[in-house]
């Protein structure tokens, strides 16, 4: 969350008016008009003009957006993968399962028949650098006065066609300069064209602004009815993430409830909080450690800055030079400019490096900011690790379907009632329609295959009870293992051991007595003990950690994944102090240990024989900057219960396709060793796809994967499918049960209406939530020569969501993806290097 919050905060920064940023500059006036650099826009447009009238080809133009990102990335328009898949060209919907009525967060947007948008290119002679001035000059013309129009300084959109293809106008600036304006028609766009979609998004943003909502990044918030969490100094602004997109056959407006978390804490509050701690010796260091890199919001002008440094030598009583050359103290400046009296004249100054608008000029501009006037934004890592805070936050942010629906209807109501909003819609001929409902299907539930029984769980969300008296599929005996614990936690370790022995025999898991080693409470002592006591036959090292200090955990994992590859299990001493729950904790640990030793817990029925499933995840959260961890996990038996894994750290700049080849080779060899043949079908689930990355995957990754499988020297050529998995998506689905809206049942598949026409895609709800509304997982089959029917593809995906051994229940993504995620997390957070291949056969990363 910290990362996302930060990104959001940056979005806020970009969406601000580009005007002088630092106090010295702001002092001599805001006249951003004459200085804006719009070079990027004009170059873009020159190309467009050369191409002449286009039919609205996506690449022909991109509107520049507030917020910097183009919609191309966000909506991934113009990628057509379905047309190449012959078996789903006509129909991509399945038919099995019980139908279920669903309500969505999608709203129809109606357009008159034959609606068109007229796109004009506008040039000014002499050229005007200021976008503001260009807009002002054009809008002053009577021709455009009462017309529906959108103009970004270069591109003009009208709902009605001008009489002439080229219209010549002239204007005079306030300074008396004559400017010739040429308005040239470049295309007439049908409503389904990508430019139009982008255009509709702009219109709806405008409408939400009319509803006095406040735009931060891409989302809109209502600051006037905030939710306060004073015990954590947080304010929540309720809001919406909105977009307009072309769904199966209709244009739809989608709205998702979001919240903006703001902190009611200034940097000065935060600093004095740190200072008032008992231990003052490391105050400066802690301060810098906690604050550098944070995004702050200035109270007086609502801009955001990043803290790059703290200058302890400068005080508010020191002077700086304003842009007009005069000198003034910081405190006088704030008094004069903003009528703010600083209360603490001894506070240090925050230093922020400003982004240079002119990229070529190498000078670094710096702003000094007063901590008292800066609010912290976003949630720091420390905050997100505060369990109670996150719980309090969740109760406010995770809305159940009923409350979510209330907010949605209120928004729809506002859009329809607000006169200004309605006017905006009407001038363009748009109609805001009703909420879409559709029919999904609930696929049949799965039976679990255990050692000598099959079991039909009561609830697919959690089958730990159902499994209680069943033997695990395969558990290797644990003969040689050690437990390392501190002197203080010896009792806890003993207690855990006795519980483990009690729960393991019904599972069919044989466990010998371990060697218990007691050490001092420090990381070095733990490592030394492990070093001394492991031998080549040691199967497992279990550590009872005195606290959840990350470095201790990291060092143990590092040592046991890199230096001495042995599966390890860490348990927090605190967890073992919860007496009432010891048995269930021990059960979980026992199962985890079985997995780490290479055992299998349960299986589901997989009708396809000789099928290998692969999960890929990419995590950028590694400690080394510029590197990302690519996790690759492939099944190595046809029951899909054993997994081969590779994790490769690589430069973010290089394509991940290269390492996929290596991983794939390894997985195939492993499969061959266990099965004495190669798999005939391979299905790859690709997770960790960011916004706008789809094109790269279609163009580079898929061909690379295929080339590693299609060796021209052998006649081995498996059938391959590649499916992009997305945990976040726009639509939400609710079902009405007992007169209230609820989350749809587990196993609900939606493959019509809310899907996109150009893709072979579907939504699957495979996880239950205790709180809030379930986010469906979105699957997009971008390559498929397996030729499975959509029904089978959906069911296979659902089955794979049952196979994550760290949780006795369904999870939101297919198990191989979750394993890959776990692997990259461990490598990225703790090990920072590629783990030893000796461990590749076990789920050591659980």
């Amino acid at each position: 969350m910290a990362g996302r919050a930060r990104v959001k905060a940056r979005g806020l920064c970009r969406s601000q008016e580009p005007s002088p940023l630092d106090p010295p500059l702001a002092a001599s006036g805001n006249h951003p008009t004459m200085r804006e650099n719009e070079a990027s826009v004009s170059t873009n447009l020159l190309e467009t003009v050369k191409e002449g009238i286009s039919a609205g080809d996506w690449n022909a133009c991109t509107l520049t957006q507030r917020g910097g990102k183009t919609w191309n990335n966000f909506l991934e328009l113009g990628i057509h993968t379905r047309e190449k898949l012959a078996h789903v060209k006509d129909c991509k919907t399945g038919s099995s399962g019980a139908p279920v009525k669903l309500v969505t967060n999608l709203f129809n947007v109606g357009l008159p028949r034959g609606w068109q948008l007229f796109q004009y290119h506008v040039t000014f002679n002499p050229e005007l650098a200021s976008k503001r001035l260009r807009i002002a000059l054009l809008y002053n013309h009577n021709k455009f006065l009462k017309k529906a129009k959108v103009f970004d300084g270069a591109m003009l959109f009208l709902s009605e066609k001008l009489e002439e293809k080229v219209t010549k106008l002239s204007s005079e600036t306030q300074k008396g300069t004559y400017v010739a304006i040429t308005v040239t028609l470049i295309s007439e766009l049908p409503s389904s064209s990508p430019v139009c979609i982008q255009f509709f998004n702009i219109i709806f943003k405008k409408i939400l602004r009319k509803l006095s909502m406040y735009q931060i990044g891409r989302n809109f918030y209502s600051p006037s009815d905030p939710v306060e969490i004073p015990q954590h100094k947080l304010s929540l602004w309720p809001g919406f993430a909105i977009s307009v997109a072309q769904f199966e056959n209709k244009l739809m407006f989608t709205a998702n409830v979001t919240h903006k978390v703001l902190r009611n804490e200034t940097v000065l509050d935060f600093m004095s909080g740190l200072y008032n701690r008992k231990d003052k010796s490391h105050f400066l260091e802690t301060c810098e450690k906690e604050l550098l890199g944070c995004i702050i919001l200035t109270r007086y002008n609502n801009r955001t800055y990043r803290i790059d440094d703290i200058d302890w030598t400068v005080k508010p009583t020191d002077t700086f030079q304003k842009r007009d050359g005069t000198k003034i103290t910081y405190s006088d400046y704030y008094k004069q400019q903003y009528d703010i009296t600083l209360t603490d004249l001894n506070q240090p100054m925050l230093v922020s490096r400003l982004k240079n608008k002119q990229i070529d000029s190498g000078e670094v501009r710096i702003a000094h900011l007063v901590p008292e006037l800066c609010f912290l934004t976003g949630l720091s890592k420390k905050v997100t690790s505060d369990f109670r805070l996150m719980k309090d936050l969740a109760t406010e942010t995770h809305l159940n379907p009923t409350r979510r629906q209330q907010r949605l209807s209120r928004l729809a109501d506002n859009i329809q009632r607000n006169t200004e909003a309605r006017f905006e819609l009407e001038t363009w001929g748009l109609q805001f329609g009703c909420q879409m409902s559709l029919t999904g299907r609930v696929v049949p539930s799965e039976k679990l295959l255990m050692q000598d029984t099959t079991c039909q769980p009561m609830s697919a969300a959690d089958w730990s009870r159902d499994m209680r008296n069943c033997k695990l599929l395969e558990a290797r005996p644990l003969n040689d293992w050690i437990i390392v614990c501190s002197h203080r936690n010896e009792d806890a370790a003993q207690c855990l051991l006795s519980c483990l022995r009690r729960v393991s025999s019904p599972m069919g898991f044989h466990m010998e007595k371990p060697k218990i080693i007691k050490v001092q409470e420090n990381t070095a002592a733990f490592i030394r003990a492990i070093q001394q006591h492991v031998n080549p036959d040691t199967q497992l090292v279990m550590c009872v950690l005195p606290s959840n200090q990350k470095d201790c955990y990291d060092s143990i994992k590092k040592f046991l994944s890199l230096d001495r590859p042995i599966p390890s299990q860490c348990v927090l001493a605190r967890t073992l102090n919860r007496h009432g729950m010891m048995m269930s904790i021990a059960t979980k640990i026992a199962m985890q240990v079985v997995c780490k030793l290479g055992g299998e817990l349960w299986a589901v029925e997989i009708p396809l024989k000789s099928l290998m499933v692969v999960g890929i995840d990419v995590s950028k959260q590694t400690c080394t900057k510029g590197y990302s961890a690519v996790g690759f996990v492939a099944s190595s038996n046809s029951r899909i219960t054993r997994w081969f894994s590779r994790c490769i750290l690589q430069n973010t700049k290089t394509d991940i396709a290269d390492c996929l080849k290596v991983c794939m080779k390894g997985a195939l060899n492993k499969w061959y060793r266990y099965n004495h043949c190669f798999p005939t079908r391979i299905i790859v689930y690709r997770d960790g796809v960011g916004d706008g990355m789809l094109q790269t995957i279609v163009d580079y990754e898929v061909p690379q994967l295929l080339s590693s499988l299609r060796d021209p020297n052998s006649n081995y050529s498996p059938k391959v499918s590649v499916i992009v998995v997305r945990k976040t998506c726009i639509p939400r689905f609710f079902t009405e049960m007992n007169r209230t809206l609820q989350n749809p049942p587990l196993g609900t598949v939606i493959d019509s209406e809310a899907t996109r026409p150009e893709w072979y895609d579907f939504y699957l709800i495979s996880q239950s939530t205790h709180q809030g509304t379930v986010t469906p997982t979105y699957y997009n089959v971008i390559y498929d020569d397996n030729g499975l029917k959509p029904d089978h593809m959906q069911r296979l995906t659902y089955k794979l969501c049952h196979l994550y051994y760290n949780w006795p229940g369904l999870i939101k993504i297919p198990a191989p993806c979750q394993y890959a995620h776990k692997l990259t997390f461990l490598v990225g957070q703790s090990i920072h290097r590629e783990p030893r291949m000796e461990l590749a056969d076990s789920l050591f990363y659980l």
Partner: protein
Amino acid sequence: MGRSSSSGEGRQAPRGVSTLIGILGLSKSRTRSAATSRALPSLQPRESWSRRGNLSDVMVDSDVQRVQVKENIKFTPSLSEQRHKFVLDFVRKHKPQKVADLGCANCKLLWRLKYHESIEVLAGLDIDENILTRNIYRLHTGAGDYLDPRERPLTITLYHGSVVEKDPCLLGFDLITCIELIEHLEAKELAQFPEVLFGFFSPTTVIISTPNFEFNPLFSGKTLFRHPDHKFEWDRTQFQSWASEAARNYGYSVEFTGLGEPPPGAEAVGFCTQIGIFMKNKPNIQPLHNEKTIECTHTTVGTVIYPSLKEEKYLRKAVSNEVFSQILKMKRVLLESLKMKNDSDSGDELEFVKPKYNESKNDPFEETPKPFCIENVFYVPLERLFSFPKIKHLCGDLETLKMLIADEVTLSSDGSSVMINIVDEEDCDLSDNDGDDL
């Protein structure tokens, strides 16, 4: 009439000669002077200037003839900035509640004014609707305004209309500013203006600024006026006689001052900008006009309402935030002292502990009851909380404090203290934990 144009001058001053010449040079192509002379037939025989032709060659009046201006005059800070500062200083001194800016154009003065706590109503009026819609963003609220709301309410409204229309929306103001406005008025409008401004709007104070024509020869430009849209520019006598007459007619007293000192040797020309400050002789006892009976002619371009502590929801929020942060601070001190105690006497069970604060000798809180601890519950007396200056300031009295925080905290049974648990609750629910190393 839009003072948008005044920003032209504001900009040129610090930016140096080339810009100014550019601006003035370009405007030469426009023949506004004809309109101007039409506008002010009676006021000034300005032929004397035009006869001299090229202004750059002009030597200033006889007594300052030695000062030949080769370099253009620059002001630091810029003149427009100085004018704004002048108004702001005035506001700081007189603390008006309702302020209007006529010809507000790019809304920059309004933007500066909105930071002043004394102001509760701000209005801007301009004839150019476009410039208002483009600049209203400057006045919008931001996240900071919600996180740390103003003490007093503030409503900013922008009106589109002419300054010579008698619109009731500008009635009852404490201060109306007309910064570099009147020189943009046509003769007819100028004639009506005093009646509308002083007679109808009748604010307590008025600030009017306009260029001083006598200063113009010191500029190296070649045009008659400083800006092509100026219909006239007055010397000191002209302005002062106009202003004095208006003041006399409508019961105001007027003082004159100015901004932008002339260079040494040319002191006789006076300030670059001349300013008249008008004060009403008798304050309005009752409204002169019944607002409802007069027809509105101005259209509202936009209204921005700022959150303020006068609204209960924001006050509640501000108080509970402050209360929580003080309680948490005390709790931390308590826990630290407990921990130190624990470490020293090897963990006795705590039954009743009165924490010792490391308070300085002259602690303002000494008089108030101290927080205390019974078993695992920490009690902070409301009186103690109320002794914090910020909380006192926000609430006013103890009862208000109690009322405001009642929903956010748990009060002790007698309602005199806030109760808070010092031992963290069970901090992890196993079912939430998706496996992991436990």
